[in-house]
């Protein structure tokens, strides 16, 4: 039986390193600027956080299956543009426009998955191509101009997606509840269900999984569709919150999302993923972005810190991995 103490097992978990980093980060920012933990700042940080976070949740599942998706940032921008263009030109009411946008994203995900699984082209190349197609489409549809979204106010759908309400002095967006819901769902799927077992097996050893009757192709295609749909969902939420559907929004989000996922302990090559780690990774990056501004470091230096965190975390994970394989 496992003779190691609870503490030892806790430390050996892949989520432990990121958790320590997150706590350190909060402690440092808070000690330099006490306003960092003010209700207003927390509420602002959370609003930004969940939009990228939604994509990171789906990306975690996709990366666990051994693939990743560079087109999420473009789909984030394209979907909002499509929804508001359809609505503003009077083609369809907002809920229908919403479904059209999500449906289009799922089609994009399906195409990604089809190219990757049927033609055996690496997801890096397939989704790089899709990144350009989606971004190009968004720019073409709008002639490069943002779509107006100011008539969203009296729409029930907008309220359901990003309506704000107050808990004490806290302003909370509905999108936070969506994030929490999807985080629980993703964690449950990955750890407790047959689908989760298949996702991990597809990434860990696709040939072995296939030989046991696991439909690796379908698993991956569905995950590509989920990833795209989630990017669309996040893009739409963002467009309503910021009252702008900008064809350029979401640029380079794909890299930030992948960074969140790997910092949390999910392996880029597949087989092992953790939603808890991803949630921690999401907060590490978003709090860093918010915190360094709060403590007076120029915002332009943000990427230096992010890059350093990624390298440090990868070094830690690789060290833990070697210890793990050595059986200690």
């Amino acid at each position: 039986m496992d003779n190691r103490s609870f503490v030892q097992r806790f430390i050996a978990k892949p989520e432990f390193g990121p958790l320590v980093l997150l706590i350190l980060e909060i402690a440092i920012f808070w000690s330099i600027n006490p306003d960092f933990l003010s209700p207003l700042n927390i509420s602002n940080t959370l609003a930004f956080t969940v939009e990228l976070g939604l994509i990171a949740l789906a990306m975690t599942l996709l990366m666990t299956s051994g693939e990743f998706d560079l087109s999420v940032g473009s789909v984030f921008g394209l979907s909002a543009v499509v929804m508001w263009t359809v609505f503003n030109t009077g083609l369809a009411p907002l809920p229908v426009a919403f479904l059209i946008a999500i449906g289009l994203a799922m089609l994009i995900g399906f195409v990604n998955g089809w190219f990757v699984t049927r033609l055996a082209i690496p997801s890096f190349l397939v989704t790089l191509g899709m990144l350009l197609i989606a971004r190009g489409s968004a720019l073409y549809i709008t002639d490069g101009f943002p779509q107006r979204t100011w008539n969203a106010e009296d729409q029930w759908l907008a309220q359901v997606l990003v309506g704000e309400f107050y808990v004490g002095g806290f302003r909370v967006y509905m999108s936070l509840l969506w994030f929490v819901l999807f985080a629980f769902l993703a964690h449950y799927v990955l750890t407790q269900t047959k689908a989760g077992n298949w996702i991990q097996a597809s990434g860990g050893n696709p040939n072995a999984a296939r030989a046991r009757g696991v439909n690796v192709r379908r698993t991956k295609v569905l995950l590509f569709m989920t990833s795209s749909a989630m990017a669309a969902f996040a893009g739409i939420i963002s467009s309503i919150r910021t009252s702008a559907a900008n064809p350029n929004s979401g640029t380079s989000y794909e890299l930030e999302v992948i960074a969140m996922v790997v910092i949390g302990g999910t392996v880029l090559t597949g087989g092992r993923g953790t939603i808890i780690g991803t949630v921690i990774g999401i907060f590490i990056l978003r709090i860093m972005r918010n915190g360094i501004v709060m403590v007076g470091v120029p915002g332009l230096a943000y990427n230096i810190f992010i890059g350093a965190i990624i390298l440090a975390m990868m070094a830690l994970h690789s060290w833990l991995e070697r210890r793990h394989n050595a059986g200690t």
Partner: protein
Amino acid sequence: MIQELVRMQNINKYYGRIHALRDVSLTVNTHEVVGLLGDNGAGKSTLIKVLSGAVPMTSGQIYVKGKEVQMKSTTDAIANGIETIYQDSALVPQLSIARNLFLGREPVKGARLFNRLDHDAMNEVARTLLKRVGITKDIPPTTPIGALSGGERQAVAIARAMHFESNLIILDEPTNNLGVAETQGVLRFVREVRDTGHSCIFIAHNIHHVFQVVDRIVVMRGGKIVADNIDPKKSTIEEVERVITGEHLIEALGLDHG
């Protein structure tokens, strides 16, 4: 009672212009461990790949319990009760022992839409199976495969084949890269496989290992079966070696001194 389990008949396989299998016919009976020997390039691997559905044959028939079957994929082979265990490759290193055992056949509980893995049942069966294949060390079923030794991994793969009632278990070079103690462990599993009523095709370079466990030795050379009923109790290793290399023919023709 001994019955015919799998019969391969007149199997031919071409890789482009290379004739890798030439009219190969081989029968494996129930309760039988067959040792398949041959030099590199003799066609052993190709024959096993055909039987396990990994590569299609060019012509020929495969019968399982007298009925002709199509082996279009490894899934077909497993559905017909033929399980191939390649070293390492059949398991997912990141997943636990229990999750690997039930991969593709996971037991679930709970309402349809919210059903979840039955971890308790999976772990319980895993513990029993590990004991059955002779792993006496106390390894929790939640241990990832990556943390196990080569011999333990083979044991897990064999345990899985036994649990899901595979009729024929093919072991491709199971003792390669294993230490002495681990090799003995694997050979013990092979005996266990036969004792529980399964059949086995055992492929190994090391003839000593083959001699220890098999009922019958089949030798391939140049894509053909050149001997299919060598009794390891009545032959010596040296004799079998000569059949593998073809030396016995040279001797018979009196060419070795010429």
